[in-house]
């Protein structure tokens, strides 16, 4: 109601202000934006016509259009786009610039020959968003999720060797960021530094990184950012597409096969399905001078979904399975502190075996099931109701080198069930307003499977999280404003036996989070975004309850059941320039985190019959993270292209005035690509030369097992060929990573203490779509 008064008031002010210059000066501008009614995605190449002037305009990639040099008066605007109902509306031009947003509704699928728009939801946010898709996705095939995401400026990895890597967004990782598998928040044992996300990158045709605090939209823990792994939208009309990826790597003799098929039913309109699977096998990783013992891996994944979509109803059932077995570098598993010091002083592993695919202890065996039911129903053109339910089962087994029969039993055996349920209501109103509100339930049960012969590192627990959220967005031409609030309450009840005594704990957490953001399209080329969001994360069970030896790490870790939630406030600003030849994205951010939880070396040692161990404790302190990401590309000629990506992060413990461990050092990646193809189709052959420069991390914590490794530079070369075989697409890629076989260590790799990183790797990537 208040808003209505406000618009009247503004309108009157508008009229008054325009009275002055009413001398029929024809210099008025009409700007606008065309969006899908369905999901607010911008429509590219929609045709807008002013009937009175008989002039037309076409929308750009962001759905924007502009008419210049208009005289004041009333105009009739028509908007046309294939498969959508024509919009016809009158606009009264008075002020110098008028902004208008139009939403287009799909025509009913009863009409023959009309392509129905898929029901994949776009991310609607004013935060900095970067997506990997198409060619970039093709080039990243064969890499783990974490590795693929390094292609996004500001994203690095926190890794344990070359097979386990966790994405890091703006210096935060594990439970401080969130990964969504087709819309469901991935719930594995994410607290562990050596626990990689349980997701097959081949199920995605697009991976999106949101670099802002998105707790309101996605729930607690999304304080650093969110990664959305999205499969392609299901077809809604008769169509079949099969894609085969076959990859081989010279390092670790990696082989990877992935097949996917999607199809639409010709009998039932709107019915579509997709099946997908991948297998991967690799042996010992080779550094420039030696093989890393026991670093092989194998992976088997598949997923399937079936969906139905009509003009009012959309429903989808989805299931994905992930299974992996990962070998852990033998010598990284140390018995006590003197073992650890010996290998660090040695600078490389003691055991340097020949190549083998065999995986021995220590190893991890992880499987993850995810099932999802999603449906929405359009109550009216303005209102849409959504139901999302996800079920997940995560099994994690970790095997250590042990004596006798115990060697065949896992030392850690966890089973984690998660149910997520979300009911939300979306609306679009008066062309300018859209929003969403809803309820969210997360329920989780973690159990230790008995029989490990080791006191569990984390207890059994039950967790329930209830959340309610509301957010609203206002769009007016080049301006978008949004805001949202959320309230969560979480209860955790944990229990375990330590030395035959039952220990229990019941914990409650409540938190409120909110965000405001805006986007302004300064010109057709320039866009500015800003987003200020609060987020929170309750302490993890391991941070609360760890008590004892972290096997293999020669560390005794002591949790603190009195830890409180972390609270953060992240401000992200983005400036994007998209010209004809140049593309630049600049993101600058600051993140203030209260009660940041970290593992602090106490400086004390603990003596046992097994030897001496360092003692670490979980502490909380205020932290401040800030930095920027810069990426861009420039088209020199129609054949020569250059690109650049870089990021700088600063993180400080503002209470102790010292640095946290494992914060990525400054880095940049730049290169050139040259198109070799025939005239008129130069892109059919492309050669890319790139160089990665990583600085030494000079902001080291007060205590570390070894100093930060020196800076390094790596050179890579790639050749991409696109072939048209009949109507089918055949892509061949040849990549050489680390051409000069440079020996280096990455600060963010936990195995830098023990071994050099991966040496030269020659990859052949074949992709066939038919």
């Amino acid at each position, binding site marked *: 109601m208040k808003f209505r008064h406000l618009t009247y008031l503004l309108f009157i002010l508008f009229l008054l202000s325009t009275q002055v210059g009413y001398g029929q000066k024809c210099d008025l501008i009409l700007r606008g934006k065309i969006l899908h009614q369905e999901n607010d995605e911008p429509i590219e190449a929609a045709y807008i016509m002013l009937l009175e002037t008989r002039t037309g305009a076409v929308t750009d990639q962001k759905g924007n259009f502009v008419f210049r040099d208009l005289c004041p008066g009333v105009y009739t605007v028509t908007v046309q786009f294939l498969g959508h109902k024509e919009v016809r509306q009158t606009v009264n031009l008075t002020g110098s610039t008028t902004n208008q947003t139009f939403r287009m509704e799909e025509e009913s699928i009863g009409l023959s020959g009309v392509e129905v728009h898929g029901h994949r939801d776009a991310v609607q946010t004013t935060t900095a968003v970067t997506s990997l898709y198409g060619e970039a996705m093709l080039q990243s095939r064969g890499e783990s999720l974490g590795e693929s995401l390094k292609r996004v400026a500001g994203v690095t990895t926190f890794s344990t060797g070359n097979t386990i890597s966790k994405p890091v967004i703006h210096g935060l990782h594990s439970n401080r960021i969130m990964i969504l598998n087709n819309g469901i928040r991935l719930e594995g044992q994410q607290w562990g530094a050596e626990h990689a996300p349980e997701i097959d990158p081949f199920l995605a045709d697009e991976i999106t990184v949101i670099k802002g605090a998105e707790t309101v939209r996605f729930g607690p823990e999304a304080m650093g950012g969110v990664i959305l792994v999205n499969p392609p939208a299901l077809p809604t009309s008769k169509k079949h597409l099969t894609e085969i990826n076959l990859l081989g790597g010279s390092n670790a003799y990696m082989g990877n096969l992935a097949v996917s098929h999607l199809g639409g039913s010709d009998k039932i309109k709107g019915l579509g399905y997709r099946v997908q699977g991948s297998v991967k096998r690799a042996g010992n990783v080779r550094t420039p001078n030696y093989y890393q013992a026991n670093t092989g891996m194998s992976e088997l994944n598949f997923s399937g979904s079936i969906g139905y979509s009509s003009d009012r109803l959309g429903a989808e059932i989805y299931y994905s399975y992930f299974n992996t077995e990962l070998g852990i570098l*033998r*010598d990284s*598993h*140390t*018995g*006590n502190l*003197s*073992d650890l010091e*010996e*290998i660090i002083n*040695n600078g490389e592993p*003691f*055991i340097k075996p020949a190549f083998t695919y065999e995986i021995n202890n220590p190893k991890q065996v992880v499987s993850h099931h995810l099932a999802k*039911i999603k*449906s929405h129903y359009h109550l009216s053109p303005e209102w849409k109701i959504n*139901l999302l*339910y996800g079920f997940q089962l995560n099994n994690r087994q970790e095997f250590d*080198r*042990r*004596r*006798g029969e*115990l060697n065949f039993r896992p*030392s850690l055996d966890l089973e984690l*069930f*998660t*149910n997520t*349920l979300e009911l939300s209501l979306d609306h679009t109103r008066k062309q300018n307003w859209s929003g969403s509100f809803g309820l969210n339930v997360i*329920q*989780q*049960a*973690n*159990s*230790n499977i*008995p*029989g*490990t*012969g*080791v*006191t*569990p590192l984390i*207890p*059994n*627990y*039950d967790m329930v999280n209830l959340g309610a959220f509301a957010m609203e967005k206002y769009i007016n031409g080049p301006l978008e404003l949004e805001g949202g609030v959320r309230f969560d309450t979480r209860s955790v009840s944990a*229990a*375990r*036996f*330590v*030395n035959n005594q*039952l220990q229990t704990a019941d914990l409650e957490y409540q938190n409120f989070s909110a965000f405001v953001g805006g986007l302004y399209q300064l010109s057709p080329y320039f866009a500015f975004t800003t987003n200020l969001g609060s987020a929170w994360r309750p302490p993890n069970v391991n941070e609360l309850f760890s*008590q*004892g*030896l972290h096997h293999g790490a020669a560390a*005794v870790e*002591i949790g603190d059941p009195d830890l409180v939630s972390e609270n953060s406030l992240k401000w992200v600003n983005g400036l994007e320039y998209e010209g004809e030849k140049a593309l630049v994205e600049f993101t600058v951010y600051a993140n203030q985190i209260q009660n940041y939880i970290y593992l602090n070396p106490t400086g004390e040692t603990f003596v*046992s*019959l*097994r*030897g001496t161990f360092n*003692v670490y404790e979980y502490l909380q302190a205020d932290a401040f993270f800030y930095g920027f990401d810069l990426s861009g590309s420039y088209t020199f000629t129609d054949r020569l292209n250059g690109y650049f990506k870089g990021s700088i992060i600063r993180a400080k413990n503002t209470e102790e005035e010292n640095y946290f461990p494992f914060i990525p050092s400054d880095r940049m990646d730049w290169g050139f690509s040259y198109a070799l193809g025939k005239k008129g189709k130069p892109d059919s052959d492309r050669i890319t030369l790139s160089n990665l420069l990583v600085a030494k991390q000079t902001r080291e914590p007060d205590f570390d097992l070894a100093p930060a490794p020196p800076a390094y530079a790596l050179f890579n070369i790639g050749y991409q060929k696109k072939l048209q075989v009949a109507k089918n697409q055949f892509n061949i890629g040849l990549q050489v990573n680390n051409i000069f076989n440079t020996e280096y260590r990455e600060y963010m790799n936990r195995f830098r203490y023990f071994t050099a990183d991966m040496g030269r790797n020659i990859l052949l990537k074949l992709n066939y779509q038919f």
Partner: protein
Amino acid sequence: MENLRKLPVYLFAALAIGFASCDSDDPAPENEGEVITDVTLTFQEVNASGGLVGAPFSAKASDPEGIEVGTAPTIQTVNLVKGKTYAMAITVFNSIENEDITAEILEEAAEHQFYFLGSAFTGNILTVSYADPNGVALGVINRLSVSSSPGTNNTQMRVILRHDLDKNFPGANNPNFANYAQAGGESDLDITFPVVIN
């Protein structure tokens, strides 16, 4: 259409099952199978002709909590007489599981080995050699000689048990191999016994 109408019913049934099956198990007490709580060195004098003489005596290192954070282990002193030679046997025990780990070590002799370091050996006060049956370099049974002129009464003997090492590594067959870490593997035991020479 009939099926579609029933769809919500199926959906909610699936949800109900999902939520109901999702309670954590009651925790079960876990017996520490890997832990070593007692390490006993048993000595018996050996005469010039190689026969065992006198009564055996022992020195024990124990930590009833295993490797849980708690009290430090108690380690008894080894009392030896100068100029004498002893048979030294090592027994390893898990009192939590009431399990003799020595048997497991013997069974996996190819993956285990004891090393003896510390001032007692670097100062030539004690000399040690493996005396395991069948000539395996293991260290469960050893021959230990005390110098007739040790120069000091107090010294230290560090007993290390390595697991998963490369026994063929050059030098690894020496019971005093200070660079044992280079042969790979990890330490299961690392105890320093005080030694008094009378």
